[in-house]
Every structure is written in C-alpha cells, then in structure tokens.
C-alpha cells in the first residue's frame, strides 16, 4: 500500500534500528438478536496502522486509524523515542527472512448471516425454546506486516455464531467459530439452535447444590473458559512479571498425563488461524503441555532471548499470547463418560472467572446454562447457585479423561477461539451462596 510504503521509507531514514508496520483493513458484519427477533444489523468498515520503532533498547508503539496524518509520524516518533528510558528486557524483533509464497489467497465463503440467524432461532424454537438471543459475525480482512526484514500480506477472517436459548428460567448455549478454510452448511446453524434448546431442558427439576469436592464433567465451554483465562500464565511476559504459577516449571509435570495442550494457529478451519505473528515470525503449532509435562511458554523473539530459547511465533501487541488452543480428545464418547459416572456434576457453561492469586492460580468461576447432577450414570436433577472455587494447577492435575468429541468454541470475551473436548475432572471444589 502506497501510504505504508511511504511511511516505512521515511521511518527507515529517521535513525530507528528496527521498525514494524502492521496495517489491517477489513469489513465486519454482525446480526444480533434477542427475544428471537433481530435487534440490529451492523457493518464495520475499518482500517488501522500499528507502528513500532526501536533505537537500541528504547521502544515506542503507536496505533492510528487516520492515514492522512502518517507524514507527521516520523518526526513525532524521533522526538519521543529520545526521551524514553531503556527497556532492559527488549532484545529486538524477529530478524529472519520468511517465506511468504505459502500465503493462502482463498476468500471466505459468502453466507447470508440474516438468513442463518433465523435458521439458528428456528432450530431452537422447534426444540422447545421459548426465546433465544445471540448473533452471527462475518469477519474478513487483510493484514500487511512490514519490518526491516520482511514484508507479507495475508488474509484473515471467519465466522462466529452464538445462540442462547431460554425455557422458563432455564437456559442452554452454543457458541462456535469457523475460519477461512471452513465449510459451513445450513445444518450447522440449525444444530447450534437445536443443541442450545436441548441443553436448556436436559432436566428441569432443581435440587439444592452442595458444597465440597465432587467429580465434574466440564463441557468444551467450561474447560475452554478455564484455559482461556489461564492462557496468560503461559506467556513469557507473565512469567517475567512473577505472576504465573508456571514459573520455573518447564519440563516438569503440571497436569495429569491425560492432558496434551497445543496452540495451533495453522488450522484455518477455525477463526484463530493466523500465518504470521505481530513481528512477522511464521506461526507454528506448539505443544504447550505434552502428556502433563510443560514444554514451553509463549515467546516472542525478544522474550525468547531472555529465556535462552527461540520464538514460538506468538508475538502480540503487548505480550506473547495464544492463537488457537486445543486440548486433546480421548477415547470415549461423552455419553459413555456420563454413563460410567457414579456421582458427579455435568456443567454446561461458566463465566466471570476471576483470580485472587495469580502465582498459585487460585480462582472462582460461575457456572451457567445447566448444572446437572449425575447419579449412577443418569442425569437426575439440576443445581443452581454454585461456584467452582479451585485452582488451575489442581484442575490440570485432576483431569482424568477427555472425550472423543471435540468442538470449536468461541464465546464473547469469555472463551477465545479454541477447540475443546469434554473433560472429566476429579474432586473439583464447589462452593455456594448462602
């Protein structure tokens, strides 16, 4: 793009050691509904330009979306960076030449999201829902990242689908995502609606929840939420800050042997797929936990130097972060897991996860959309008003089994784009309101 080229040329003549320009441009459509009727239909047509410059260990970052002012930027940055203190932990940006010939040019499939939102709603209403709320997003754009060493442009985008169905005071929710290489069908949207209604009505009789330790089958949404909120603990920046329970645990067991957790940005059937990170390092599939053993943190080029390792291709604007987490599936189906459970809970969803102790991963989260009691292999009743009050290290060490089925889940700010199975976790601490 001409304006980006012009800015790069000016910055490269301004005495900076390293430069990153990241220009994103795209369109987002959203149809949102509640009470089974459309609330709004919105379109975002946006572009933005991120600028990162360094001189020695002095760094500076700028984001603008008004490209008409780019000619004023170099002088401003020169003036500012000379007054910056050094960041002693900064070690430069990714400096190897990447192969940009592998960039996909496939366009996102065109889908009528108004029509598909009705398909979801009808799927819910035909299966017992009294009303439903949710949305569909269609996101499509291009990212151009230019550094001293590389210049690549690649497509981004996908779909997000969300529906929550209600019957009396009961609710069930489904939230999924699909990427550039996805193959969505009408039946996929109908199924989301049907499943959300079914999950709301698995059992409608309530009994009082009980405090204490109990086995829990966590749905893909529950384990997805816990791992989304825990993903920062895997970031090298959190470890450096002293706010991660994973500090000094590389190559040590941090979870049960049933747990293999990977970050997979190369799966473009999900919306978390991404070809290059924010400093133009190629992304890659990273095994974070391998059969219970912690293998790596999320690293950028700069943080990796502090750990005497290599970048994992996870550089973000502020800190290295995950792109698309996947927890491995197991042998048995969810129905078999429930059938063999003597006494435990089957929890459908959770939200509002908050930590009281980052160094030990102590947190609580509030289950919603169905908390079912399983007795002798049967769902017998549902609870309400309980909370999972435990720690992430305990949860990871207590995962006994994961289901054969996995689902692509992404929900609002609560679950990042992930692919998760059901997970049986032993002796989860439950508390309740009095």
């Amino acid at each position, binding site marked *: 793009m001409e304006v980006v080229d012009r800015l790069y040329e000016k910055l490269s003549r301004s005495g900076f050691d390293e430069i990153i320009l990241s220009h994103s441009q795209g369109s987002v459509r959203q149809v949102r509904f509640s009470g089974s009727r459309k609330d709004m*239909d919105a*379109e975002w047509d946006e572009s933005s330009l991120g600028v990162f410059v360094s001189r020695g260990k002095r760094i500076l970052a700028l984001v603008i979306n008004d490209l008409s002012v780019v000619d004023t930027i170099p002088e401003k940055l020169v003036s500012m960076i000379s007054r910056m203190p050094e960041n002693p932990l900064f070690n430069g940006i990714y400096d190897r030449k990447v192969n940009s010939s592998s960039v996909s040019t496939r366009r996102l499939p065109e889908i009528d999201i108004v029509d598909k939102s009705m398909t979801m709603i009808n799927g819910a209403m035909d299966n017992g829902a009294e009303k439903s709320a949710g949305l569909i997003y269609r996101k499509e754009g291009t990212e151009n990242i230019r550094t001293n060493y590389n210049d690549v442009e690649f497509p981004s985008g996908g779909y997000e689908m969300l529906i929550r169905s209600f019957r009396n005071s009961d609710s069930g929710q489904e939230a999924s995502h699909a990427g550039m290489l996805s193959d969505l069908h009408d039946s996929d949207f109908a199924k989301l609606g049907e499943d959300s209604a079914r999950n709301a009505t698995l059992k409608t009789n309530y009994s009082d929840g009980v405090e204490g330790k109990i086995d829990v089958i966590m749905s893909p949404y529950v384990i997805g939420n816990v791992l989304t909120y825990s993903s920062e603990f895997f970031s090298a920046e959190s470890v450096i800050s002293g706010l991660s329970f994973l500090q000094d645990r590389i190559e040590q067991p941090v979870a049960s042997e049933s747990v293999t957790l990977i970050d997979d940005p190369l799966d473009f059937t999900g919306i978390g797929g991404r070809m290059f990170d924010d400093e133009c390092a190629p992304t890659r599939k990273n095994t974070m936990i391998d059969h219970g053993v912690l293998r790596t943190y999320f690293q950028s080029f700069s943080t990796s130097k502090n750990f005497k390792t290599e970048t994992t291709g996870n550089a973000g604007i502020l800190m290295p972060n995950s792109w698309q987490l996947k927890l491995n599936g197991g042998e048995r189906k969810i129905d078999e897991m429930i059938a063999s459970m003597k006494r435990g809970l089957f929890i459908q969803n959770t939200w509002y996860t908050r930590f009281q102790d980052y160094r030990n991963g102590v947190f609580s989260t509030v289950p919603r959309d169905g908390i079912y009691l399983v007795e002798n292999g049967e769902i017998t009743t549902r609870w309400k008003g309980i*909370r999972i009050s435990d720690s992430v290290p305990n949860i990871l060490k207590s995962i006994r089994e994961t289901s054969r089925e996995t689902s692509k889940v992404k929900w609002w700010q609560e679950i990042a784009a992930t692919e998760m199975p059901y997970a049986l976790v032993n002796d989860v601490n439950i508390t309740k309101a009095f």
Partner: protein
Amino acid sequence: MEEMLDSILDYCGKRSSFADVRFMSSEENGVSYRNGEFQGFQTSRNSGIAIRIVNRSVSYVFTNSGDMEEIFRLIDGAVDRSNKPGKNRISLGKDTRAKWKVPSSKFPLDMSIDDRIDILKSNDEQMKTLGADIRINVLSDSITHEHYMNTIGSSIEGEYPRIGYSYVAGVMDSGNFEQSSAQFGITAGYEDFKTMNIEDKVAGDIKSLKNAIRSRGIKPGVYDVVIGPEISGIVAHESCGHPTEYDRIIGREGAQAGESFLSGKTYPYRVGSDSVSVIDDPTMPKSYGFYRYDDEGIESRKKYLYHHGMTEEFIHNRESAAILGVEPNGCGRSSDWDMEPIPRMSTTYIEPGEFTLEELIEGIKDGLYIVSYTEWNIDDIRYNEKYVGKEAYRITNGKLGDSLRRPVIETTTTKLYGSVDAVSRDLEFSAGTCGKGDPEQGVDVWMGGPNVRLRNMYIS
C-alpha cells in the same frame, strides 16, 4: 467536520424514519513500569463515524473512511438492511443543541513523557520500600472529542480529558503470596492528579497485604459484618447497577452478560432493607464516568436505582426507554466511535447514612470488618455474588481485633441488601472499567459507597 456530518445526516434523513451520526476522535497514551524497570510507551490516535439508520429495523455503519462516496455506499447498504423486519422502537426525545467541555489547565497533551515516567518510578520505589515483591504500575490518559447529530435536529459537541492509573502489587512471605490490584481514574487534567491519593492507597494496601499473609482465615459461620467503601462500591455496581440496566431486563444482553433477576418482576420491587439506597450519577464533577450528554445526545442526570430498598428508576438508552415507554435518562454510552451506545452506568454508589464507622463496629458483638476485596464475581442475572476480602479484621465486643486472611462473602443480592441495618456517613469511590456489549465495550466508571453493616451473613 460539521459540514461532513450534515451531508451524511441529510443523506440518511431522506432514507430513514430516524437516523443519527456520531463523530468521535480520541488521543490516548499509556506507559508502564514493572518491577523497577521501564516497560514501554504506547500512544494511539483514533477517529471515526457511527451512523444509525432506523426503518423497519435498526442498522449501523461504523467507518473511519473519509471518502464520501464510500460512506454513501455504506449507508445505502445499511438502509437496505434496515428495511428488513426486526425491532425498530426508539425514543426520539427532544431536539437539543449544546456544547460542553471539561476544562483543564494541564491537558494530557501538556504532560511530558519524563513527568509521566517520574510518577511511575516514584510509585514503584514506594512499593519496593514498603516490601512489595511484585510491582506493575500503569499510567494512561486520553482526550476525547465527540459530535452527535440526529434527524430531529439535535447537535451536541463535547470534549473531555481522562486520566487512569492502575497497579498490581504482590507480597511473598514463607512460601505464601498475597496480591492486590487497584484502579484510579478522573475525568480531569493532570492538575487534579493528586486528588486520586495513589500514594496513600499504595501505602495502606501493601501494609495490609503484609498483615494478611501472616494471618489466619475465619472459622466459617454466621457473623455480623461491616463492609468498607471499596466493597460497597463494587456491590452497588454489580448487584444494583447491572440488574437495573433495562436492556438486560428485556433480554438484549441474554447471550452475553446475561439478563437480570429483575426480569418479569412487578415494579417497584423490594430488593433490600429501608436502610439502603443506590444512586447513579454521571454529573458528579471529575468522576471517571462523568459526562454532560450521553453518546445519543441525551442530557445526563442523577437518579435513584434502588430507593429505601425498592427499585426506582432503570438505566436506559433511547432504545430501551422506548420499549418501556419512558423518556431516555442519559445512560446511552459507547466506549469508542465504533461501538453502539447501550445502557451503561457512570458513577454508581450506595447513598451514605448518618453513622460513623466506629458506631457500626461498636454495634457488633461477634463479627468482622472487611475493608477491601481481591477476587469477586457474580452470576449472569446478578443475583449470586462473591467477594473475597483483602484487608479484614475480627470484631469482638465492638472492638477491632486481629487481621484475617481472605474471608469470603458468597451470597445473594436480596440477602445482602436485605441484611443492611446501618450505613455510615463516609463516601469513597474506586475507578473501574465496566465490560458489556458485543463487541465487548469497556467504559470508565466510578463505584462507591460508605461503610455498610450487614447482619447475620454466612462467612467462610
């Protein structure tokens, strides 16, 4: 800019039953300091236009394009979509023309980088001296300009600076760890920076962490409790402010932040004792959530959400007010130019009473005083909530005793508000960033209250 907005509005007006256009630009700066070392400086300049079209349904366009042909093309698409069926009720209100500005003698633009870094360095050093092992300090500031116009003749321009500050501190002792997060904010320039009293708060916070880490928990049971202003503030926000947002009550947030325990009730509905009232007030000068007009051009005003234990008024934007059949009350806020204005809080607080803190404590035989909190959360209908104490003390026979570690209140909204028997005359505020909407919008708020006494609460 006004000429451009006029052209857009004129184009939309011929194609809709109602339309509004909002231009917003902001300049933001953020600088961080971690464990004695400078981390980085980030700055952003963002601007764009939000256009709402109402016909058979509501459609939006958000664009930062300056090309009028492109904007008209986007509007044409939005008009087509708005002619398809959906909800379309919106309160028109009255036409208003106004300009407002928060004056400042030291705008963020006048603040040097060196001065910003000096603030962070000084607070980091203070934390270290007091014994904090982990220290992250972040200073942010912004100046925002907004121009709202609609097809019934309103035109409102506003400009305001905001300053925010946050820190995370951690203390380690014999293998144990205690942490604290705090946030401060004002809608003002740097001349008022010291009113946030960050140094005093840091000093108290680190001292209490060092006490708590060597303390024991309380034996679970039923106690009388005094909660401090930081907790009464988060209580007011979470279990009064959120459930009285009328878009939640009618289910518009059903798949995200959720509905409300007040959905389907007959109003006014009794939530708590006569002793407790909660106010939302965007007009409080220099508060973090201050604004004179909301992002839909409605003048802001103070309102009771709960009054003597009963629901009184709800939080509305133009859309939710039309659905209930009332006038909008100036609560339509958007966090940025590319977000829709939805019903939001501003400064939400429990109204002070007549007692002193000492009188509240003297009235307790066997209980505790929980001054501040760490972890908290609440369910999606805003009924089942939890607050974990950070600084807390035992009360025996009306006197404060030993420090306690992490006492937990896990209760319901009606139980909590129903247990209030006395409220102190103090009033303190904390800053926060309130999340809601999809895409998620974080808006600046204050949360506040006095010391509040609760009878017969289960504490674990």
